[in-house]
């Protein structure tokens, strides 16, 4: 991996306009003045004064923007699920970004809060919601502070509240902070949390938010990044958005890369055409694997995704392509592990995360993830038994029958099966590393438990 392929010459990697990260480098991008001076709130004005809600909805539908929360479901289609004539209906914005390795929404909220607020307002206008709830992860102090300031300015400038910009459209935005639970990023658990209950998911069906959501009313739950794209779509048209990226994955998309790359960070890349290799190795992005090492495995879409391996490096960041390959782009959190990574330890760290974050509602997840974590820890501590690998997979089977992708599940939400992904990936691909641990009580040559620092250590 020391030779730099030709396409790593600057300019050879596909680029595109910065749709939503344009103000990231702007010092006052988060202020009202900074936002308005760079074209902020023009989309809102246009939507409210020149377009009907149906037209706004049509633009978003035309853009075929996939939701950025993880499932990648087209936002315009989702909005269409609201039953006609049932009011009140709510817009809930999921800012509870807690997937290990994901930090794109945090930056969007910290560096460009007005863009999000504008997107929320336009979305509320399109779906006919008079009340929006912005649920921000509890730990994101700076994002919370800046959103509060931004919302205050927006209210002061008649952009939120009654008769926005003199039209007869009114909507209120309520800010809510999470209390530190990953599971609340699941939309029905987020709704429970908003209602003041414990953050535990509801069963779908019958509790599809679009039909029976917040306070049992029709509710649309959208991700922060999804709505941040809306002002651009309104300003430039859905078709122009659709023309960026690949037809199967439209627009630009933010990926948060962490792990063993030289310059980890958040990158807005053309969706569907950029490949993993370009992202990891191009100088304008991550700039290569650290210490000149090579990729051993990487997680393409958050800790709950199945792992990818070097043979997947030239795959495009395209939803259908990645889905077909047996994983997902999820929320755009990419974690890179180089050759020195101890796969058993990496696997354990991720499973530990899920076992700690299990809400405790469903038996298989509550008991199963903890069991998996304890087996892995025991193997790491040098007390593994030969039958442990089978037990690991058997317990996985109890949580996610078939251990297939997309996972089937015995639980309400996908958190339990998420813990299965790293085990299924690591045990299948690196079984010898597990067996080495069981036999000798230590990792194979050349890997180090501590090597995972900087990769999945923060998990």
């Amino acid at each position, binding site marked *: 991996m020391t030779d730099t392929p030709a396409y790593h010459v600057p300019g050879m990697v596909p680029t595109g306009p910065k749709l939503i990260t344009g103000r990231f480098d702007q010092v006052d991008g988060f202020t009202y003045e900074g936002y308005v001076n760079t074209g902020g709130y023009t989309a809102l004005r246009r939507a409210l004064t020149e377009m009907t809600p149906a037209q706004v909805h049509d633009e978003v539908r035309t853009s075929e923007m996939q939701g950025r929360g993880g499932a990648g479901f087209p936002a315009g289609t989702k909005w269409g699920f609201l039953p006609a004539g049932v009011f009140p209906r709510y817009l809930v914005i999921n800012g509870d970004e807690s997937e290990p390795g994901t930090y794109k929404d945090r930056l969007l909220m910290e560096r460009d809060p007005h863009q999000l607020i504008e997107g929320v307002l336009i979305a509320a206008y399109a779906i006919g919601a008079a009340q929006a709830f912005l649920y921000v992860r509890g730990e994101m102090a700076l994002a919370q502070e800046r959103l509060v300031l931004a919302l205050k300015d927006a209210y002061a400038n008649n952009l939120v509240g009654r008769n926005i910009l003199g039209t007869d459209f009114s909507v209120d935005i309520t800010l809510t902070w999470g209390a530190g639970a990953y599971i609340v990023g699941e939309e029905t658990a987020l709704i429970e949390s908003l209602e003041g209950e414990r953050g535990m998911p509801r069963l779908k069906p019958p509790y599809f938010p679009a039909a029976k959501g917040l306070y049992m009313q029709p509710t649309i739950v959208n991700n922060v990044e999804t709505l941040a794209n809306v002002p651009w779509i309104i300003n430039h048209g859905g078709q122009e958005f659709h023309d960026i990226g690949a037809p199967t994955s439209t627009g630009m998309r933010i990926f948060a890369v962490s792990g063993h790359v030289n310059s980890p960070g958040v990158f807005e890349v053309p969706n569907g055409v950029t490949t993993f290799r370009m992202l990891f190795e191009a100088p304008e992005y991550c700039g290569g694997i650290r210490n000149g090492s090579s990729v051993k495995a990487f997680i393409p879409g958050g800790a709950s995704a199945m792992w990818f391996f070097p043979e997947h490096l030239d795959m495009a960041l395209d939803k259908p392509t990645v889905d077909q390959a047996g994983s997902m782009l999820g929320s755009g959190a990419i974690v890179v592990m180089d050759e020195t990574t101890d796969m058993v330890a990496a696997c354990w760290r991720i499973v530990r995360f899920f076992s700690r974050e299990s809400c405790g509602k469903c*038996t298989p997840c509550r008991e199963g993830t903890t069991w998996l974590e304890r087996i892995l820890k025991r193997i790491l501590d040098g007390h593994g038994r030969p039958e442990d690998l089978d037990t690991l997979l058997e317990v996985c089977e109890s949580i996610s029958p078939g251990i297939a992708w997309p996972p089937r599940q015995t639980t309400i939400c996908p958190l339990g099966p998420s813990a299965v992904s790293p085990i299924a990936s690591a045990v299948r691909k690196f079984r010898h590393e597990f067996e080495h641990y069981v036999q000798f009580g230590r990792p194979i040559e050349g890997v180090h438990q501590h090597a995972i620092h900087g990769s999945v250590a923060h998990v």
Partner: protein
Amino acid sequence: MSEETSTDLGDLIEDSEPEAETSDVAPEPEPDPGVAVTINGRVHSARPGQLVIDACADAGAFVPHFCYHPRMSPVGMCRQCLVEVDGPRGPMMVVSCMTPVAEGQVVNTATPSVKRAQEGVLELLLANHPLDCPVCDKGGECPLQDQAFSHGPGESRYLEEKRHYEKPIPISDLVYLDRERCILCDRCTRFADEVAGDKLIHFISRGNDTQVMTFPDEPFASYFSGNTVQICPVGALTAKPYRFKARPWDLEQVESTCTTCSVGCRTVIQSSRDELLRYQGVDSEPVNWGWLCDRGRFGFESANSDQRLAVPLIQTDAGLEATSWSAAMSTATELFTEALNRSGPSGIAILGGARGTNEDAFAWARLADRLGVTRRDPQLADGLAAQILNRPRATIAEAAHAKTVILLGPDLKEELPVLFLRIRDAAEKRRSRILEFSPMETGMTRYAWRSERYEPGFAATAVRSSLADPEIASQIAAGDVVVVVGRQNLAESDAVTLAALDAIIAAAPAAKVLPVLRRGNVMGALQMGLAPRSAESEASQILHAAADGHIDLLVLLGADPLADCPDAELARRALAGARRVISVDTFLTSSTAHADLVLPAAAYGEKAGTTTNLEGRITPVTAKVTVHGTARPDWMVAVDLAARLDQDLGFNDLAGITAEIAATVEGCEELEALSAGRATGTGRDGILVSVVVPEISRASTEVTERISYDYRLVVSRKLYDNATNTQMAPSLAPLAPGPCITVNPMDLTRIGAEEGTQVKVIGARSATVLTLAASTAVPRGLAWVPFNQPGGAISEVIDLDTTVTDVRIERL
């Protein structure tokens, strides 16, 4: 976390069927078109809206489950009830407790993949379960144990350390929690929230550390806590009175009806070695839905008390002394003969009879008839005039499905707890609107659509002005009104409540009435012939006559006027003024201490017969254990006495009494069949009987305005009080809150005393000292005192002859 990682939202929405309401039970069975579902290859007709798990059970395919309970909303938490349902994309694994049936649905409960999934969940449930079955009370009747055998993998591969918690911790005075055994099924917490409305236990922590817990320093002090023990699918919740008393396989049980109050909940009585050990609720659709209150559930302790009367007692110069039944019955005969000779039947009065069976009451009523005794009343001037029974009567189910329920009675939560659950359910599920008339806040107030306050004495005025409110008027005009009426305030004449009822009936002539007289079998006693015949035979007049020396023989059938009559002074004078007193009771009470002759009575669980609940529903009660000592059922005493007095009652055993009731009491024709079926527990729903009792006209009452320095008294009962059966149950006795007088916080300055201090409560006749408390539940100008609390004597200041009771409250 990502909002959606694996499910395809769009497809699922399109696939999903319109959701069916499953928790409501329809009031009348609707024409049932049936939904054709294929379960394990056989077509089964399910009820529309039924859950797959229930449809499978009906079709004979048991689906293992832990969190699902038919009387609570499903949560899909334990994941044990996974089955396969064929969908557009092949068989899908769904939780059958949250999936409604659909036409043409294909359900499989026993395919290899279902079996694998169910075994997997069970292995996981057992992973952290301590498997301490040999020392667990639930072992032998444990759903986890049973289903581990029937649907489990057989062995566990779990080698890791299990969860450890301090073993059992008390979460209330009655319930212990063992968090190691808990499988977090959400049944107890859901019950506390959904059914009881006492959201005092909840999950704390998360994931593998999740545990059921109370709030800090706030115990699970619910009147219904025992139900959580009964529905716990493991041995995590155990009840103090039963812990380590027996193994389930050593218990024998019969079905019966609880007679602690007049709701008439169906129960099973369980005993071992001839000792009552446990009562469990039985799901009776028209009555209790499987629930019991703690007072009913744990009341068996009093039957086992070693303070029970075992032999007859006779008054001598040295006090009450033991004697034989033959000597006692001779004395009783002498006392009756003497009284009849002195002043004829009008010199004899019978108080009580509401604690026994219908057969007891009937036998005594027949004896009274034969002797010509008309002075008889099963109530102690603490209920309502008996003619309340003559109103068009509603059932509990009708009340719980009525458009409007008007509450003009006591705090149901305190006096008739399971009726409270049913009415609360109606309000919570938005079936009924509750219109409450009460002098102060009750346990039902927070569920009421409107709660109207009135000053004692002016209920009718309040009713009339409320019914003039257009919103209330239109609600009433919509019809389907049930009035739940009972004695609200023991410091106020029942005439006030009856006048208010008249005002309601005037506005809603078609309204039905559910009379909520609280004593166990008071309805049975009234309907079986112990109802007063004239104004002079009502309890208050009997007591007055006794006090004035006109009663030669006062018979107390399980009655304790000193404790239960609102006017203690009158009761005391009556017991002193009656020439002779015979008491038939299970314990020595304050009143029996004054008796010339005390006959030990058989208690609940020791005698068979039938009982009548407040709707007029007759159900069998069953004898499970042999009687304590030489105690006898009341009817036997009556039959024996009749023989000695040369009276022919027309029967001389229990079967004879039953036959005679069936032959003579209107509506009881099927009583013999009901009683005959008692051994097998059939006839759970019983028969509804509505007997007309004599109408008694009374002088109308006058109410005076309160002087502004005074407080108008509200005296009502709490669930736990100084009642003998509560005090003799060691687990229940400490739960009585004790005496106090509660005023509005704004009245504290007027009194010049702080909460917790002792104050003097001065009535027109006498005064008593009570602890002062303050609560916004009590309106200004009123003072609330719980009745018959240990150590309190509010009945000293109540005068039965006044309509309302005003007191002054002074600093000591």
